[in-house]
């Protein structure tokens, strides 16, 4: 019990440090980008206007004070007002969250549902044509740049074959290509890992015992081998959820998907920095929370790593 509490505490500390570091980087970058006041005012505004806005934003105060105030705002989820949308940045960003969540979760589900069976088949049919072909595709999928994969899918499946729409958000057909693009890297990674984890387990003595007592091969694989191979697969699979979040910026841009990533890119072009900061922070927060949840779940699942 004490080990478990220590474990939870150490993971929570790490998550909090990560959140603090992200906010600090956001603050530093914001300050490095220069004075925000001229961005908010017309070029011919009088000096008194500058002083008023500087006071309003707090940029007339000492840096450590600004930093403290900033952290206070971050805790309350306050990143200031969007210059473009003219409403609180957090509200804007949260509005774009569902589209990203929909795309991310679909891509994730697609990746897992394809990769795990494929990895198992590859391991069971080791060194056959099927195995080699699947692993070759997985290797390409793992090193292909996400945005180019999206472009290829659009060219071949939308424009040439006319099967699916090229961009935008609508019915489920709009979701297929972006989800496939976003999930490709994870799919490839999970398939390769499932294969190697299962191969590792299939070599173990208890698998030989299971076979020796006359169990059918599919039972050996499904009941004895797969359950044990599942632990490393689960860890990597969880981490992939975070990778998906990072890659969704690119995928959303390629497919004009109205999510957080596209909002970030648009806000950069519009020099709408409160929104940029907010999106970066919000995504980092989601990522950190996911990782934290996975580590906790993992700690409960695998008693061996708990005390660490």
């Amino acid at each position: 019990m004490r080990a478990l509490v220590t474990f939870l505490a150490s993971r929570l500390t790490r998550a909090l440090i990560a959140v603090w570091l992200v906010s600090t980087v956001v603050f530093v970058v914001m300050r490095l980008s220069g004075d925000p006041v001229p961005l908010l005012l017309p070029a011919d505004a009088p000096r008194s206007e500058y002083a008023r806005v500087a006071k309003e934003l707090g940029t007339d105060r000492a840096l450590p004070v600004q930093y403290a105030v900033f952290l206070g705002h971050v805790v309350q989820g306050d990143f200031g007002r969007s210059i473009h949308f003219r409403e609180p940045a957090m509200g804007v960003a949260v509005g774009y969250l569902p589209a990203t969540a929909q795309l991310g979760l679909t891509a994730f589900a697609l990746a897992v549902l394809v990769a795990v069976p494929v990895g198992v088949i590859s391991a069971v049919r080791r060194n056959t044509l099927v195995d080699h072909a699947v692993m070759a595709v997985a290797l390409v999928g793992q090193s292909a740049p996400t945005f180019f994969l999206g472009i290829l899918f659009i060219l071949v499946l939308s424009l040439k074959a006319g099967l699916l729409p090229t961009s935008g958000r609508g019915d489920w057909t709009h979701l297929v290509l972006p989800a496939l693009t976003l999930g490709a890297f994870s799919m490839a990674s999970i398939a390769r890992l499932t294969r190697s984890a299962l191969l590792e387990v299939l070599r173990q003595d208890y698998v030989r015992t299971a076979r020796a007592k006359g169990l059918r091969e599919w039972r050996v694989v499904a009941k004895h081998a797969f359950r044990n191979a599942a632990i490393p697969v689960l860890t990597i699979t969880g981490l992939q959820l975070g990778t998906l979040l990072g890659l969704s910026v690119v995928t959303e841009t390629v497919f004009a998907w109205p999510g957080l990533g596209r909002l970030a890119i648009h806000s950069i072009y519009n020099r709408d920095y409160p929104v940029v900061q907010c999106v970066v922070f919000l995504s980092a927060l989601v990522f950190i929370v996911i990782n934290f949840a996975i580590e906790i779940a993992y700690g409960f699942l695998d008693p061996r790593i708990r005390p660490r």
Partner: protein
Amino acid sequence: MASSIPVSVPADAALEAARGGRVAQRTRRLVAAGAGFVLLLALVAVAAPWLSPHDPVRQSLRGRLAAPTLEGADGRAHPLGTDHLGRDVLSRTLYGARVSLLVGFAAVAVGSVVGGALGILAGYRGGWTDSVVMTVADAQLAFPFVLLAIGIIGVLGPSFPTLVAVIGLSGWVDYARVLRSQVLVLRSREFVDAILALGGAVPRIVARHILPNVLSTLVVIATLQLARAIVLEATLSFLGLGIQPPTPSWGGMIQEGREYLDSAWWISIFPGCLLLLTSLVVSRSGDWLRDLLDPTLRSE
């Protein structure tokens, strides 16, 4: 990652060793082929002005969106076609290798120096130095750095130094973690104590005895990071946050051709295929190099 101890005992050790030797030889050839590819690409990048049939930024309104041809409207060959401004895609693709390799290698240099130094420092010094370095490393791994990179470059504005610094620093953790654990092991070896007892200075021990021992690990990570850096640069250029036009970069070209995918697919697809090939070859070379130099690094 769970460390795996091979359980199977080979029936015939000699046979197994012979097979291992053959595998190693094959891996060596593959690594050499990968290195050859990168060398060739570097030669292309350096010799781009002589290899390119056209000026990569010269526009030609009459020769816009020409399909790959050996005899274009201007009477000259455009083997990979022209783009929406009539620029030669082959020439731009060749020049694009410059940006990819320059940013890639510079970023790897930044990442390996920073990450390597911090990893060796953390491993050698231990104590609170180690705690601070590893906490920051863990924290960096705990959020999507690509997103932060986009935010940073978006706010600071894209420039070569910013790009190199951001891409380079996005990869420092890998070097630091692996080198730290290696140095931890090395430091406890007798030869380090012996040198210390003989009055050897710590920087000298690190430079003369620790560094050569971790060099092969460093090379493996640097190769894997090179592939990552090239893809990240192309991604940022694609998003308009990398090297700015009119300088040709693969990511930028893919972005420019996106609007014309239906009518002029060659603008995006040729540089994209070269990018994909480069990423695949470099990352596979890293895997092979790891198998050859340091099988303990295997993570999958």
